[in-house]
C-alpha cells in the first residue's frame, strides 16, 4: 500500500487537522472533532444547509463547506456514515433558528444515522427537513427509484440548496429547491481499478485488466455488469444513453453536466470523455449551460469516472450560477 498516511486507523482525524489548517479562512472546527462548519456559521437569518457522509470522497463532503454552500458537515470514517451524534452536532453548528436542510445521500448507514439525529434534534427544538439524493441510475430500476444511491449529483444538490438558502429561501423553499434539483438529476459511474481503504490494507474488489465495472458505486460497490474496456467515445455514449431516457431529458432541455473522476484517473481523460459526452448531448438536442469537469466526488484512488446531468429550469439555473466559495467548488457568478 503506497500511502501518505500515519496510522491507517487515524486517517480521518489526521486529514481533518490538515484540512482545518489549510482552509482557516472558510472552515472552522466545532466541539465535535467529527463536525466541521463554515467559518461564518450559523449565518444569522439563514437556513442551515448540512450534509454528512463517509470519508475518502474528497472534495466531498467537507470540501463543499463554504460561502453560499454548506454550513456544516458530519464526517464519517472512510466509506462509513457519520454517527447520529455527528449529524446532530452538525445540525447544531449550522442552526441560526431558521431550521436545517439536511441534504444527504441514500445509503443504509446515512439513512439510519440521520433518522436518529433528526429525532434527537427535534427533541431539542431544532427543525430539520431532509432531501435524500438518489441520482445513480444503474443502482435500481426506475420503479424503485427510492432505492437508488446518491452519487456525484449530490454536489449539484448542495450547490442548489446552498444557493437557495443564501438567497434567503426559508426551510421549505430550500428543501423544495434541493428536492427539485435531485429529481432532475441522473448519474452513472464506471470503474476501471479498485481502491484500498487504508485500515483494510488491500483492495476490496478486483477489476480484471481490460475490463470495467459499469454502474459502480463510489465506494467500490460492484457495478451492475462487467464489460470489456472500450474507447472513451463508446464509454461516453453508453453513459449518455443510460442517463437521458431515465428522466427523460428531451430535446430543447437546458442542462448542467458534471464529469467527475473517481480519484486516480488523470484529469486529461475526463476531458477526453467529456468531448464525446457533450457531442452526444448536443445530438439529443440538449443545451449545456454549465459543465463541471474534474475530481468533484472521488473514491480514494479508484480509476474511473461518473457522468451527472441535471435538467435546469430558470430557478435551478440561477442557483447553479450563483457565486460560491469552497475548497471543492469556487466560482464567480455570471
Amino acid at each position: 500500500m503506497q500511502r501518505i498516511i500515519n496510522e491507517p486507523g487515524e486517517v480521518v482525524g489526521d486529514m481533518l487537522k490538515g484540512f482545518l489548517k489549510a482552509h482557516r479562512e472558510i472552515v472552522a472546527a466545532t466541539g465535535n472533532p467529527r463536525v466541521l462548519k463554515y467559518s461564518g456559521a450559523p449565518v444569522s437569518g439563514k437556513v442551515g444547509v448540512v450534509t454528512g457522509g463517509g470519508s475518502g470522497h474528497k472534495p466531498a463532503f467537507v470540501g463543499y463547506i463554504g460561502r453560499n454552500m454548506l454550513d456544516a458537515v458530519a464526517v464519517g470514517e472512510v466509506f462509513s456514515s457519520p454517527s447520529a451524534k455527528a449529524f446532530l452536532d452538525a445540525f447544531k453548528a449550522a442552526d441560526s433558528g431558521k431550521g436545517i436542510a439536511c441534504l444527504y445521500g441514500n445509503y443504509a448507514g446515512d439513512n439510519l444515522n440521520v433518522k436518529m439525529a433528526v429525532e434527537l434534534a427535534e427533541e431539542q427544538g431544532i427543525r430539520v427537513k431532509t432531501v435524500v439524493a438518489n441520482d445513480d441510475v444503474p443502482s435500481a430500476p426506475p420503479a424503485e427509484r427510492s432505492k437508488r444511491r446518491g452519487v456525484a449529483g449530490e454536489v449539484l444538490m448542495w450547490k442548489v440548496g446552498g444557493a437557495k438558502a443564501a438567497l434567503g429561501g426559508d426551510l421549505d423553499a430550500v428543501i423544495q429547491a434541493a428536492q427539485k434539483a435531485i429529481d432532475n438529476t441522473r448519474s452513472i459511474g464506471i470503474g476501471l481499478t479498485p481502491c484500498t481503504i487504508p485500515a483494510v490494507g488491500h483492495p476490496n474488489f478486483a477489476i480484471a485488466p481490460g475490463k470495467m465495472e459499469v454502474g459502480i458505486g463510489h465506494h467500490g460497490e460492484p457495478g451492475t455488469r462487467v464489460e470489456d474496456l472500450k474507447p472513451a467515445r463508446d464509454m461516453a455514449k453508453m453513459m449518455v444513453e443510460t442517463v437521458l431516457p431515465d428522466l427523460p431529458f428531451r430535446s430543447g432541455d437546458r442542462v448542467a453536466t458534471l464529469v467527475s473522476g473517481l480519484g486516480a484517473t488523470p484529469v486529461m481523460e475526463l476531458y477526453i470523455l467529456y468531448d464525446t459526452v457533450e457531442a452526444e448531448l448536443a445530438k439529443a438536442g440538449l443545451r449545456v449551460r454549465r459543465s463541471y469537469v474534474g475530481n468533484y466526488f472521488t473514491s480514494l484512488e479508484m480509476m474511473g469516472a461518473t457522468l451527472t446531468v441535471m435538467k435546469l429550469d430558470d430557478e435551478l439555473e440561477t442557483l447553479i450560477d450563483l457565486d460560491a466559495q469552497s475548497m471543492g467548488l469556487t466560482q464567480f457568478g455570471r
Partner: protein
Amino acid sequence: MESFASERGEPILGALVAAIQARSGELSDLDGALGDGDHGINMAKGFGMCLEQLSARSYGLSEAFSTLGGVLLDEIGGAMGPLYGTFFRGLARASKGRERIDAELFGSMLEQAIAGVAALGGAKAGDKTLLDTLEPALAAYRRALSEGKPFSEALGELAFAAERGRDSTREMAAKVGRASRLGERSRGSVDAGAASACVILCALAASMRTLLEEEAT
C-alpha cells in the same frame, strides 16, 4: 436454575471484543464482496474504543452493553453503528438493575435488542442482513427453553442456529443496504452483518457458558 452474577461484565465484554477483533479482516472481506469493505474495521474500532473507555475499573454487564451501544451510536456511524448501537442498548436496558442473569432474562434481553434493530432498519428475515442471524438464533433459544433445556444448553442452540442463520444468507439476494443494488449478483456470498452478528452471539454464548460453569463449581 442456572444463572450468573450480572456484575461479571468484564469477561463477557472482553471475550466479545476479542472475538470481533480477531474476525475483523474476514468481516471486511465479506463486506468488500458485496459492499464497501469497511464492516470489520469499523466494528473492531468501536468495540476497541468501548473497552478502552471502561478500562481501569470494573463494570457490570448492563453497563458494558450500554457503553458499547453508546460508543457505536456516537462515534462509529456506518450502518452498523445505529443497528448494533440499538442492539446493545436493548440488551443493556433489559438487564439494567438486575443482579443475576438467568435464561428467561437473557431471552427478553435478546428480544428487546432484536426488536429495536428490526424497527430501526425496517428489514425482515430473508433480506440478507444481520436479522437473518439474530431472529433464527433467538427462535432456537426460545425453543430450547420451552423444551425444558437448561440455560447453558439453550446458549449452545443459540450459537448453533446463529451459524446456520449466517450461512443461510449465502444464497439470498439482498433486499436492503448497499448490496441490494447488486440484485442477483449479491448471491453467493454471506452477508457481512449476518456474519458479525454470528460472531457476537457465539462469543456471548461461549463466555456466558463459562460463567455458568464457574458459578456451578
